[in-house]
């Protein structure tokens, strides 16, 4: 189990990072601390901070869409005011002006994820470079390979998908 001091430190780091990027952590400190503890427990178990409210497989490739911040955070913030586990909330929720709606699971079920993996977007012949999209923040770039780290939201290369 993660040490309380490590949980507090990681929670501070996440908060600083979130605020710097225009995101906000859940204002309920006890609830948020529990989620951060879960993230660190997952890092100990799997080697990456997969979502505390989702069942990870332990295989990074299968879990990459649910590594926090997950691929579904931004659309869930837009639609419900919170991400699926509610670690991240919108500004009005953070300020206490709004109660977030319950967030239904947006991640496709296992069988559908398998099917999606098989599909690959066709690349138009006319493009000089392929276009890569960060699945976490939507950043687009046209270059032969995606960047090592997303320059906008700092997630690693394996969070990029071929966009065009």
């Amino acid at each position, binding site marked *: 189990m993660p040490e309380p001091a490590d949980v507090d430190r990681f929670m501070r780091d996440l908060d600083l990072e979130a605020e710097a990027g225009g995101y906000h952590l859940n204002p309920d400190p006890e609830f948020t601390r529990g989620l951060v503890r879960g993230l660190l427990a997952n890092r100990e178990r799997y080697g990456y901070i997969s979502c505390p409210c989702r*069942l990870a497989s332990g295989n990074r490739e299968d879990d990459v869409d649910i590594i926090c911040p997950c691929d579904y955070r931004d659309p869930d913030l837009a639609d419900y005011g919170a991400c699926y586990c509610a670690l991240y909330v919108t500004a009005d929720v953070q300020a206490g002006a709004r109660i977030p709606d319950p967030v239904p699971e947006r991640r496709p079920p*296992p069988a559908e994820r398998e099917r999606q993996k098989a599909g690959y977007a066709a690349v138009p012949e006319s493009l000089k470079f392929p276009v890569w999209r960060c699945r976490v923040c939507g950043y687009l770039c046209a270059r032969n390979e995606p960047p090592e780290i997303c320059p906008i939201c700092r997630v690693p290369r394996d969070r990029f998908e071929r966009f065009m």
Partner: protein
Amino acid sequence: MMAMQHVPGVDRGRVILYALSTCGWCARTKELLTDLGVGFSYVYVDLLTGEERDRVVREVERWNPRLSFPTVVVDDAKVVVGFREQEIREAVGA
């Protein structure tokens, strides 16, 4: 089943909570059922391994194909997915 923990309480049928040990909403659901005084069993699916985990995962998928947590099943009939307090109260008749 070995992995199921039982919380004693008033008999409202066979109440099973499928949960994750790291999930805040699963914790709230367990608290709610405990506060309601309902007898229930729970299992932390993320702590299971091997065949036992596969078996429980298939069990959850039967009720909730998205395999999300918490999933509450009452009497192999009523299913509540997520911490939906009112629906959980109604499902256990509390």
